[in-house]
């Protein structure tokens, strides 16, 4: 018994000495990112990507490091702590009447040195014209004379940012499944897909919905003049009596009044209610997507449920990122942590700081005018692309 006890004590002492407590294993890594200028930008005369700021954001520890590219378009980050990072860079230059906009972003797992030879893929986009963009999103609602919240005046405006007429026939408005203040259940598929709880189509039309360059269309929650209508709110900032389309629920005949504007069609509405409502304090992430082929068939084939072991009866639709034409993540405030879409769609969200009901909205910034037509900024970074806390101006493009 005595000997056994002594053996045990000795063994434990030896084990206790087995770790070097004065020299922990500390790792740091160096990474080099090379930004190769795409051919399309070289043709426009862009020769170098020198002197451009690159931001490296540690997603776990919530801090950002900045560095400047050298004459080779390379940037070095030295002695980084191991972890998960996102990098972002953007550059714009006018060449004649062409605006060249280069945006690079990506994710890096820094678990080892990343050498020059391991060049990272960078996505560049040349902005000459563009496509449909979400121009204005008014969700915060207004305050009634009695001091209550009024959100019936919410709307979304889509704008043709290209130099050509576009048909919105195959365009669908979607709202992503989760709000920005809760973890994204679908984060594991975020790199290639979004998951949505609402898909709205424009009403069917044999001619389609042709939108001229520099024009747009408004999708109103309730298409009425909110300032003068007896059902409205005199304090509302908007008159939506001329809205192009209206979200309308066929679930009830009393809750949602059907106004004159053509009704949009809900192709998917997981939490269907008597009226649509976007989160008034912010949190919705919306996108316009272009789904090829038969949309009903597509939805039926791509329904997903939460819960791998005991799936929920609530069904959502998975849509590839490549179908997304434009997207905006709306947050509660600047201090948001949960992304619902990949940074290639929207690298950082926007918000109304005045919160709800402020009667204010987020509106895309005008980059420039070409022949009197407004070209809106679209760098896939809503934080930079949108002005926030602005008074809604539906249909005013100047």
């Amino acid at each position, binding site marked *: *018994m*005595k000997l056994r*006890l*002594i053996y*045990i*004590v000795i063994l*434990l*002492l030896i*084990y*206790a000495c087995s*770790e070097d*407590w*004065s020299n*922990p*294993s*500390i*790792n*740091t890594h160096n990474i080099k990112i090379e930004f190769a200028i795409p051919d399309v930008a070289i043709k426009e005369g862009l020769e170098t990507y020198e002197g451009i700021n690159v931001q490296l954001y540690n997603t*776990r*520890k*919530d*801090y950002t490091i900045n560095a400047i590219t050298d004459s080779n378009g390379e940037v070095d980050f030295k*002695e*980084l*702590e*191991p*972890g*998960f990072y996102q990098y972002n860079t953007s550059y714009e230059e006018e060449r004649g009447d062409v605006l060249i906009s280069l945006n690079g972003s990506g994710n890096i*797992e820094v*678990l080892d040195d990343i050498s020059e030879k391991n060049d990272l893929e960078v996505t560049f986009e040349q902005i000459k014209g563009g496509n449909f963009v979400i121009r204005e999103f008014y969700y915060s609602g207004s305050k009634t004379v009695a001091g209550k919240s009024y959100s019936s005046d919410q709307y979304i405006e889509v704008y043709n940012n290209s130099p050509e007429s576009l048909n919105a026939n195959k365009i669908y408005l979607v709202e992503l499944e989760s709000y920005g*203040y*809760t*973890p994204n*259940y679908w*984060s*594991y598929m975020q790199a290639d897909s979004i998951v949505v709880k609402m898909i709205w189509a424009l009403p069917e039309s044999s001619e389609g919905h042709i939108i001229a360059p520099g024009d747009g269309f408004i999708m109103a929650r309730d298409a009425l003049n909110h300032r003068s209508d007896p059902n409205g709110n005199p304090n509302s900032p908007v008159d939506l009596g001329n809205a192009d389309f209206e979200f309308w629920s066929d679930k009830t005949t009393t809750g949602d009044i059907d106004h004159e504007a053509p009704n949009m069609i809900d192709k998917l509405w997981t*939490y269907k209610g008597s009226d649509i409502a976007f989160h008034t*304090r912010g949190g919705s992430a919306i996108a316009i997507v272009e789904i090829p082929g038969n949309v009903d068939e597509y939805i039926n084939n791509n329904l997903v449920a*939460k*819960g*791998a*072991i*005991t*799936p*929920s009866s609530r069904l959502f639709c998975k849509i590839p990122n490549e179908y997304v034409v434009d997207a905006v993540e709306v947050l*509660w405030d600047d*201090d*948001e*942590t*949960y992304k619902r879409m990949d940074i290639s769609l929207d690298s950082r969200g926007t918000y109304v700081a005045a919160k709800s009901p402020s009667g204010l909205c987020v509106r895309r910034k005008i980059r420039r005018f070409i022949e009197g037509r407004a070209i809106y900024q679209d760098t896939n970074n809503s934080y930079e692309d949108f002005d926030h806390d602005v008074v809604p101006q539906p249909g005013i493009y100047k």
Partner: protein
Amino acid sequence: MIVTRNTIKKMRLQHQTYFRISHNKYLSIFTLICFFSVFAIQRVDAQEDNARGIDTDIHSVIRAKTPIMRSGNPASLYYSPVDSFIILATQYSHQSGNFKSISTGDELNGLCAQTFSFQRLDKVMLYGSFDYLNQKEQGMQYSNTYHVRHDTPYLFADTIGGDTYKREQFVFTGALAYSVTSRFAIGGKVNYMTGYGAQDRDPRTQNKISTTLVSIGGMYQLTEQLKLGGDLFYNYYNEDIETIVVEKDAVYTIFNLTGLGTYSKHKESTFYRLYQRNAYGSNIQFEWKNNLLTAGYKKFKENVYDGRRESGANWSARKHDSEYRNNTWKASYIYTLRPNDFVHQFSICAKKADYIGSEPLQKLIKLNENNVYQWTTIAKEDKYTRKQEQLRFSYELSKFRSRLQRNYWIGFEMDYFNHSEQYYVPDMSLNYKNLYTQLEAGKYIKMNKSGCQINLVYGWNKNLDRDTDFTYDNFITERIIVPDYLFFSSGHNSVKAQIEYDFKIDANKYCVGLNYNLHNQYSSSNKRGSLTITLSAFL
């Protein structure tokens, strides 16, 4: 509809927690009665013929009389100078003041019921104790753990202050020592603590905590003058924390601190965190004549897991946040002289503790074709170290008026403490060295059928050196790390006065004591006072 249902669920959960605490009150009273009943049927004898016969601070008497019992070896219980003794006590305690750690509440009120007993049955010596604590801490901030923890950098905090924390805690201890032969004794000890805590303000946490300690030991008497001993122990600590928000549609930012101002954060309406610590170690004892030499080490590993509740999201249940490892060595030497009724005791104790904190890097990995995902560790990086060195010297003189009661006593203690923390990449450090000195004097005054005991303690803490090197200042550094650093490295004084009056209520058997204890700590600009009133019955 969904929001409403969630809100109701959260409120129900909150209600259940408070109900559980309320329910536990009844459970505790019932347990207490049962526990007392067991002791009440035992035959006990008063030890001496004075008012109480046994010193209130029986543990000090035991340490003076039988130094080997300082070692913690459960087999040493067999050599207890106390054969039969029961104490029942209730205590009210109050603390308030601003000389405190940043996370400690402005005010603390507690009620405690305690009983412990020694009982010798032939070759067996038994010890048992039970503690019940009901505590309310007001004005807390930056802490969502059951106790404000200073032994780890991996803290859990929100930024909403003014929390009130209600806690309820039960502690059971049982120890047994058995003399196998006239030279060889073995012993075992089990200690179990469980506690519940809840905050009253969003984001409100609900804590469930438990610790289990098991130790075994043996002690062999080689000669009349020489004893050898050894013991092993295992300790498990578990704390479940569930954070909820009752306010509709509200979310709060919750910080997982990772050392010296670094953190990760989550904006949540619910959050779950789990601390699990496994500790084990051993000690050896060598007693020769009046000399006692002990040495021991302890090792622990604490893992922290996080989860974000999402319906059906099994992968989100647990994410490994940190791993914290420790190795502690300690050695002590005690020299005891016992001329007549005096006991002189010199002791010197050295302790060295090293800690390493690691942060796992985890990714969601798809496990199989059924879309089952799991957080998987792809790397684990050492990021934090802490070193603590302590050297303590003390001298105690006790003059005994009877076998287990001191007449007067004086004590002197010097405690050197060196603390250093380091975070790597970005490199930051924090260091301080303190010297704490304490003087103590006490006297028991015998009166007719009663007695009065007075004890005075004066201590002062002097900071010898301190410095910090923070790469960046942020909210956490400014509000938590620096204020705590200034607190722990501050020069301060403390005065403690204790007066106790006791009287017999039954000749030679029972007596009741009332203890009034005031403790004030103060630095140049802050102070904190505590008051403890204890009513005890000695059987």
